[in-house]
């Protein structure tokens, strides 16, 4: 069983689902524009222009989304925000995926008291205000990017652990696991070689639901001024900037808000769609 084979049926089924196709196309488009757009624009995300602050969006001068209170081009800044937000979210999701899969697979496969203790710990952590601990971390240590990734990843692994554990419990009963055990494969070997590849489908689905959560946390921190630092920016930071100018220049609030909302909606619909496709009970 290799990793690629596990994902193939998922791709095949996804191609026929309209929601999945539309949402993933929109996301890919946004990502492509965020990567290429800044190269085509004559403006730089950090260059200020005090002659032209709070300009309305216009094609002349290539300020497609207008300018902010320092005269910086909002189009380029929004794209930078998209790039950073997506980057943070994807890395953070990988962190949570790593922790969640390892934790869930071990709890599920080892079982017994170990499982009971590990899952009680997850239950206890579930309703904890982790975000406040992240803020505490940000206050105590200098705000750095790495910390944001790790902190967000450390919040989001709980769901993943629960789902992976459930899957592992049922995989454990299968014949090929018995066969592996019979020919003397060690427990770590079975978990790595036989259990985790079969978890891939579920993991991919839940990762698309973890990414929007990570985006929410990142933009929440940036909105509060605790995340990405100027002149770098993220969508949350842009919304925050928009709030202070919203009466005179509402587009500074509305454009980043709409972009953020579209990205989050697409990821959530994508995740829901993928979950429906992979859930054998939901054959509608």
């Amino acid at each position, binding site marked *: 069983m290799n990793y690629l084979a596990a994902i193939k049926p998922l791709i095949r089924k996804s191609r026929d689902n309209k929601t999945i196709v539309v949402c993933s196309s929109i996301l890919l488009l946004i990502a492509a524009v965020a990567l290429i757009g800044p190269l085509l624009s004559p403006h730089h995300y950090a260059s200020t222009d005090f002659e032209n602050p709070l300009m309305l969006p216009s094609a002349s001068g290539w300020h497609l989304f207008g300018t902010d209170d320092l005269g910086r081009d909002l189009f380029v800044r929004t794209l930078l925000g998209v790039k950073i937000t997506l980057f943070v979210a994807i890395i953070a999701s990988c962190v949570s995926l790593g922790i969640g899969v390892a934790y869930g697979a071990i709890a599920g496969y080892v079982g017994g008291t170990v499982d009971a203790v590990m899952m*009680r710990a997850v239950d*206890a952590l*579930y*309703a*904890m*205000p982790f*975000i*406040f*601990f992240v*803020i*505490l*971390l*940000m*206050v*105590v*240590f200098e705000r750095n990017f790495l910390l944001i990734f790790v902190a967000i990843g450390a919040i989001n692994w709980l769901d993943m652990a629960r789902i992976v554990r459930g899957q592992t419990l049922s995989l454990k009963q299968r014949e090929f696991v018995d066969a592996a055990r019979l020919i003397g494969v060690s427990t770590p070997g079975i978990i790595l070689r036989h259990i985790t590849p079969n978890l891939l489908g579920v993991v991919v689905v839940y990762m698309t639901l973890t990414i*929007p959560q990570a985006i*929410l946390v990142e*933009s*929440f921190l940036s*909105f*509060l*001024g*605790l995340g990405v630092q100027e002149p770098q920016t993220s969508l*949350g930071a842009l*919304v*925050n900037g*928009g*709030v202070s100018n*919203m*009466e005179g220049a*509402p587009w500074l*609030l*509305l454009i980043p*808000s709409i972009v*953020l*909302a579209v990205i*989050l*909606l697409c*990821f*959530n*619909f994508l995740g*829901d769609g993928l979950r429906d496709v992979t859930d054998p009970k939901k054959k509608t």
Partner: protein
Amino acid sequence: MLRYALLRIFGAIPTLLLVIALAFLMVHAAPGGPFDAERVLPPEIEENIARAYHLDESLPQQFIRYLGGLVRGDFGPSYRYRDYSVSELIGNALPVSMQLGVLAMLLAIVAGVAAGLTAALSKNSFIDRLVTGIAMTGISVPVFVVAPVMVLVFAVYLQWLPASWTGGTSISRLILPVVALALPQIAYIARLTRASMIGVLSSDYVRTARSQGLRTISIIRYHALKPAMLPLLSYMGPAIAGILTGSVVVEEIFGIPGIGQFFIRGALNRDYTLVLGIVIFYATLLILLNLVVDLLYGILDPRIRGR
């Protein structure tokens, strides 16, 4: 039931201690002390200050001292607000935040359950699709986007409601913050209620009731509503956590003098004791409320107690 209750209560204590220890350690791992920024003092005076704040003691001693303070409701002095202790700051801000949080929670439950039930009862209809779509939007769009847009529309353009806490009557100034805070939770609760109601309505005992000729309304009232509400109860923990997190943003945007605003100010000013105190306060509140939810669950669903 008593055994279950005791188990839960004793289960919550280690969690609470762990949380406090974790938060305490994080703050004390911070590079630099609270008085480093001030002008250079003679070493004797620095020593005296350290002694006065018990900074010369070992970490375990300081932790025990802090715990002892917590038991008496004393979170220590604030490092930035000179004349206040952290307990005073929290105590002054609590009524406002609580008013906001409780109202938002009530609104979320009432509106969420109503929307979810409506959708479930007309499954796959236009209304169902509308509710599910709006709920998805509510989940996706964060509070810090919804709240400013609401201010822009209802306060700046339409001028129906005040944009900030100081600008309105005691009721009108609550409307926008409470709605903004409740919206994501309304969406989650609506989705949850819809899914669980649909599940219950397709169960065997509901089919039996229907075959006996009961009217839909009595089936829901007497057979379906209670089991369908159970998943909602277990969502209360995350919902309360969501409201707490959201209140930080909402209080910041509307300029509401609640705990969340102090939390952000504290975080931006690096007021260690204030942030530590609020984190512990929030965590304790959450653990206690989760305990209440757990106990309620045990009362309502006898199957849980056996485990």
